[in-house]
């Protein structure tokens, strides 16, 4: 698994980093920490506040392991060629992590586009980013980034709203295709948080959809076969929206957003933004 952590210098990113560390400790995923800023700082590429934050994230991440347990320990020294200016390269001694890949990247430009591009180019399975808690779900200085990343990413996205234990996962599905990758991401979250799983089949107002029942049964069987404690129910979209606004401070809201059948979905892309914004707790958008 490869995880991309997209962070800025604000406190919500520090909360999200803790969730990243929890994920990394259990999955030993390859990790990229990405800083994004609108334009190059002068004289260096990174603005001082972001630079400090990235240094802090790197150190916090790497120091989270005790002794020799870390798969990310920087033990692999090697010479590599780096471009200095056009036509000139310099050989530098660099130290890389031993067992699993750990990198810190910086991209300059539109934050949302930069995060999505990084995830695509690196082949990430999950993007983790923080955002303001409560009903806003914003990034300071670039408010729409979390919701747009959640809506437009090709892979799953975990939006961490604040630091809190997760005791239950509310996973919502409609009639869309459910990928193997999304089932696996949810498995990992259930395992890491030792959380209960409730799967909710979401139907349009006043309507009943056979496909939703079919999906609900398929998903129920999948988790039941793997010994996971699961309960299932059906809810209308509007009821779901209302309930996530008021309930579940310790719930992780997980939304199945398949890559296919976007036009025929009950959760069109704008719904993702609404549910993400309304949720009181962290949100996992699964693809």
């Amino acid at each position, binding site marked *: *698994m490869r995880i991309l952590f997209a962070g800025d210098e604000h406190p919500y990113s520090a909360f999200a980093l803790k969730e990243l560390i929890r994920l990394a400790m259990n999955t*030993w995923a390859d990790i990229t920490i990405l800083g994004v800023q609108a334009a190059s700082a002068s004289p260096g590429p990174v603005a001082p506040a972001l630079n400090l934050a990235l240094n802090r994230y790197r150190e916090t991440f790497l120091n989270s392991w005790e002794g020799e347990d870390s798969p990310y320990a920087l033990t692999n020294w090697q010479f590599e060629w780096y471009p200095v200016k056009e036509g000139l390269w310099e050989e530098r001694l660099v130290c890389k992590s031993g067992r699993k890949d750990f990198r810190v990247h910086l991209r300059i430009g539109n934050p949302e586009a930069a995060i999505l591009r990084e995830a695509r180019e690196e*082949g990430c*399975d999950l993007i983790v980013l923080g955002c303001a808690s409560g009903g806003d779900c914003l990034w300071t200085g670039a408010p729409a980034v979390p919701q747009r990343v959640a809506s437009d990413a090709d892979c799953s996205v975990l939006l961490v709203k604040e630091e809190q234990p997760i005791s239950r996962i509310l996973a919502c599905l409609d009639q869309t295709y459910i990928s*193997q990758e999304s*089932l696996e991401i949810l498995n*990992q979250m259930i395992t*890491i948080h030792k959380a209960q799983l409730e799967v909710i089949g979401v139907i349009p107002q006043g309507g009943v959809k056979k496909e939703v029942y079919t999906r609900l049964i398929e998903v129920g069987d999948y988790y039941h076969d*793997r010994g996971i404690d699961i309960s299932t129910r059906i809810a209308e979209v509007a009821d779901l929206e209302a309930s996530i606004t008021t309930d579940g401070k310790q719930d992780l809201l997980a939304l199945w957003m398949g890559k296919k059948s976007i036009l025929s979905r009950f959760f069109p892309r704008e719904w993702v933004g609404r549910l993400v914004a309304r949720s009181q707790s962290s949100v996992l958008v699964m693809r």
Partner: protein
Amino acid sequence: MVQNKLKILILDDEPIVCKRLKPSLEKQGFEVDTFTRSFEALQAVEQTKYDIIITDLKMEGMDGMRFLQEAKKLHPDSEIIVITGFATMETAKESFKKGVFDFIAKPFNLSEIHRVVMRAEAKIRGTQA
């Protein structure tokens, strides 16, 4: 000089994983056998020496940890790659204690598996940097 094809065994109780990995590794030049039941996979290991074994952990019957122990007993120099949908710090540590080559949490993309398999191949062929 043409090198012998390395033999890979894949064990995962989810047929979709085997179905996805087999053609992609065969395309990379490996000889691949797949199994969804650990006892059948162990029988195969008793009869054939696989250079690389890719195994899931959580399975009905004999689990992946026990399977990899038995496989290592039979062929200590087989390189074992663990893939798991239910990763924990303990299973990762235990896997490495038992001498696995790498530990990969699901979901993974094919390029990730290819990279790890190529590193295992380099180790087996003695061409590791």
